């Protein structure tokens, strides 16, 4: 895709002094030593864009110095970074907006990247909004596609709005850096190349804990809780209002159990108190991208659709052959979910146990 960008004009011309901004950065999101996979997806994407522009990929790794952090810096090279900006300070051990924003603002002003990418996660969206404000530059939210318009070497960031009913392409032409947050699991995970290495630029910001007003009292990890982990599930069995009554949700749980998957639901079920909000899939719930999504008794309203349409394979079960979900599901089954769900549980159970006996 190489479309002409906007006509020349005041806001469309890059001022001379901003032309020295070069290179594409990804702010690597790590929490307690583990990296969010969106960061590596973005390093892979940055690699492609940087090769188009003929510039370097920089990965910014922030945190308290530790062996885990060093390992993360190494990983950044294997996924495609040329330079790692390793920013360490004890104050950066836990994410807090204020010290992270101060440090990132300084680092950007010092090394002048032309593009800065972050994951559209709770951390990335929190940090990006703050940094774009201190840098007084543009920020495109929650993108699903990135490209370079070669005629003026600008970033074209495409994103959904109005709950996914529209897409728009946004550019930041007269300001630097160009910033964007990108949804997890939209860009593909790059292959590792363990032979790759690169430069490390160490940055010691010399922060003082006393200067930071917000304190982390404790951290309650999800694995210590009973929350549904939909975002990373490979298989999701989801139920909607077509299940009729709360007891029938058990049929969905049974099938999910046989498949080793998670249970998702539509919003009306959460609102009616059938299950907790942590299982809601959709615009105001979770965005998921499993390998298999089985939707039982779900009509396929746009607000649900945007949360699950990126699934690799969608099977929809609905009594109404004209239900909108059949317009975008891959496989459709017209029938009563209340009888088909238990039958599926049986069928999968048999299929999988036969194999176990054979193996």
């Amino acid at each position, binding site marked *: 895709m190489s479309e002409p960008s906007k006509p020349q004009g005041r806001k469309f011309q890059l001022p001379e002094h901003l032309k020295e901004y070069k290179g594409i950065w990804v702010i690597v999101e790590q929490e307690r030593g583990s990296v969010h996979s969106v960061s590596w997806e973005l390093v892979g994407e940055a690699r492609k864009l940087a090769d188009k522009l003929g510039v370097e990929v920089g990965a910014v790794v922030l945190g308290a110095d530790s062996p885990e952090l060093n390992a993360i810096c190494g990983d950044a090279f294997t996924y495609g970074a040329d330079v790692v900006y390793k920013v360490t300070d004890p104050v950066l051990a836990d994410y807090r907006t204020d010290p992270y924003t101060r440090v990132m603002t300084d680092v950007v002003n010092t090394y002048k990247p032309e593009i800065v990418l972050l994951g559209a*996660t*709770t951390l990335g969206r929190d940090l990006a909004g703050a940094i774009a404000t201190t840098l007084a530059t543009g920020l495109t939210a929650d993108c699903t596609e990135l490209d370079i318009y070669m005629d003026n070497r600008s970033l074209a960031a495409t994103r959904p709005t109005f709950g996914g009913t529209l897409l728009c392409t946004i550019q930041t032409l007269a300001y630097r850096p160009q910033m964007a947050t990108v949804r997890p699991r939209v860009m593909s995970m790059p292959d590792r190349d363990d032979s790759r290495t690169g430069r490390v630029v160490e940055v010691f910001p010399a922060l003082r804990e006393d200067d930071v007003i*917000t304190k982390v009292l404790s951290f309650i*990890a999800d694995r210590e809780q009973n929350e549904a982990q939909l975002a990373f599930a490979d298989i999701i069995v989801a139920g909607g209002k077509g299940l009729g009554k709360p007891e029938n949700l058990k049929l969905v749980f049974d099938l999910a159990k046989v498949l080793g998957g998670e249970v998702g639901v539509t919003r009306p079920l959460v609102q009616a108190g059938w299950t907790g909000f942590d299982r809601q899939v959709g615009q105001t719930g979770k965005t998921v991208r499993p390998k298999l999504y089985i939707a039982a008794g779900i009509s396929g309203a746009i607000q649900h659709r945007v949360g699950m349409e990126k699934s690799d*394979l969608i099977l929809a079960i609905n009594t109404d052959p004209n239900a909108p979900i059949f317009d975008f599901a891959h496989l459709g089954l017209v029938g009563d979910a209340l009888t088909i769900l238990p039958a599926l549980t049986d*069928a999968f159970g048999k299929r999988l146990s036969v194999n176990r006996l054979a193996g």
Partner: protein
Amino acid sequence: MHIVVCIKQVPDSAQIRIHPVTNTIMRQGVPAIINPFDLFSLEEALRIKDKVGARVTVLTMGPPMAETSLRKALSLGADDAVLLTDRKFAGSDTLATSYALTSAIKKLSEEETVDLVFCGKQTVDGDTAQVGPGIATRLGFQQLTYITKIESIDQGAREIVVHRRSEGGVQVLKTALPCMITMLEGTNTIRFGKMDDMFRAARYGLKTWNKDTTGAEETKVGLKGSPTVVSKVFVPKPRAQKATMVEAEAPTAEAQAAAAVEAIFGAQPKLADELLARAAAGL
């Protein structure tokens, strides 16, 4: 304590239709509502008011018709309302929007110091989640996004303890007022307004401010003050194909299920292998 709640009037996204020829949004007849995420924040502000006492001011930037959203917020129990409206604000991106809103919050602070600003997590139209962080940064307030619970608030010590959702867990944070908070959806249930608040809301004389009232600089608002340029708006390509219907030999649930399993395994051989391997390993 003075709390400002920023609310945005948005088209009811459930009823948005796209014009088939021009690919633009058809707003005619689409009801406008308060951005649903803002209601969780408004509710939390009202709970603080109930618990420790506070004046709650609602603020919106938008066209004159956004007044209805402010009246709705008043009917739920907000004390005061400001409509920030000016043609010069049209076309503002989030950098310019947060600047304009901040100019109004600063003006409100001259009357009575603002201790807390609430924003919605994000809107259902623009959907960026950037305005709250922009306001916090401009005001120099502590920024607390994706809050699931306000654990305690101590007016004397000016301290607040909150639970914040992160990707892998929940951070318990303690910070000082003033701060900017966005509540996560589903964290509270929005109240019904009381009868006398409803009457008061209908009669209430709103403050209507423009660029000059708040002293916002012209170069920082509207299209001029917005670094981002929308270069293209388009409707997502519909998936070319409808679902392939699973055909069973007999119309029984068993036959349909068996056919569905074959269809799934046929379409996703890798997934089938993984499932079978996992089953074989006894997982």
